[in-house]
């Protein structure tokens, strides 16, 4: 399990978390290469299906990173995303995969440190949980979003 390298898909809002990732890079902050970032125009664009399909296609964990409460560029995209993450958590619990494999985080564009810390902590959490049971012991069949 110690050698297990989880694949984490992070849906990051263009206006905050994605820029925070950029900030982390500019500051030379380290965060695990396991995290595959998908830039989205707003976390309100991330549907339950995006999260589910990322897991079904081989991700071990998924998180959505959006703006701080009240700061959404499109007013309510981040609150919608929070509700969808909760919905997916419940669904994953019901199918036996475990809702703790998805999470919602909030940060501003200037929070490079928070981005790196979040990426590291979530990766460690998923590493402790072990591989996604839906992978059936196979290697990652598809690395969702890699290079996107």
């Amino acid at each position, binding site marked *: 399990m110690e050698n297990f390298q989880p694949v984490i898909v992070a849906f990051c809002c263009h206006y905050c978390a994605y820029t925070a990732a950029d900030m982390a890079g500019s500051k030379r902050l380290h965060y695990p290469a396991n995290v595959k970032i998908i830039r989205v125009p707003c976390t309100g664009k991330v549907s339950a*299906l995006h999260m*589910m399909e990322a897991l*079904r296609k081989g991700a071990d964990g998924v998180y959505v990173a959006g703006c701080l409460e009240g700061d959404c560029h499109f007013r309510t995209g981040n609150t919608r995303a929070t509700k969808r993450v909760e919905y997916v958590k419940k669904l994953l619990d*019901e*199918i036996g*995969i475990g809702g703790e494999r998805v999470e919602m985080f909030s940060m501003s564009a200037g929070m490079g440190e928070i981005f790196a810390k979040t990426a590291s902590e979530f990766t460690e959490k998923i590493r402790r949980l072990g591989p996604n*049971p*839906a992978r059936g012991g196979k290697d990652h069949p598809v690395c969702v979003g890699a290079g996107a």
Partner: protein
Amino acid sequence: MITAERKPIEDLINSVSSCRRILLLGCNECVTVCSAGGRKEVALLSSALQMHFMKEGKPFEIKEITLERQCDPEYVEELVPHIDSADAVLSMACGCGVQEVARRFKDKVVLPAVNTKFMGASERQGVWAERCAGCGDCVLGMTGGVCPIARCSKQLLNGPCGGSTKGKCEVDPDIDCAWQLIWDRLKALGMTEKYEENIPAKDWRTGRGAGPRKIVREDLAS
């Protein structure tokens, strides 16, 4: 629209657990609008079921098809090339769609994936409420456009009852008293004299009182 809600995942897993290949059917009409059984919900349920059975190590294949209307034979016919390859059909349409597919494909097990609820309207994003009971003899013209059959807990034709308090129903404080709504609306329209009119006892044969109903339009019927 006809509204519906997806059945609990556990029930759906149990209903298809003996199958190896299922055809998961959506409908592009009412259940799409009420986010219960359209293309998106089909994809989401497919994803969930596949993950569950992958975890269990059980071979399981799903084909997803969303028909324009599952309650119309013309569209159901489109399933002919796909039906044989499925052990069972799991339909996310309302009860009408499920039955139409079952009628057309007599040797195929057709399972409902949603619970059909009521004829309703969208109150706001993600909230639907009952508006019509299909009584077959509409009284909305007498009640200011608010239906006492669908929206009064007691279906009172001459309300309100004594359980109406501050505009709410005694059954549940979240339910508006239909007769309060009727009175407010008639008052706003300057039609309070309508309230004085006694609505006679309803002939329920136009509703479900005389068994399953049918509409035949001679000018259209083939």
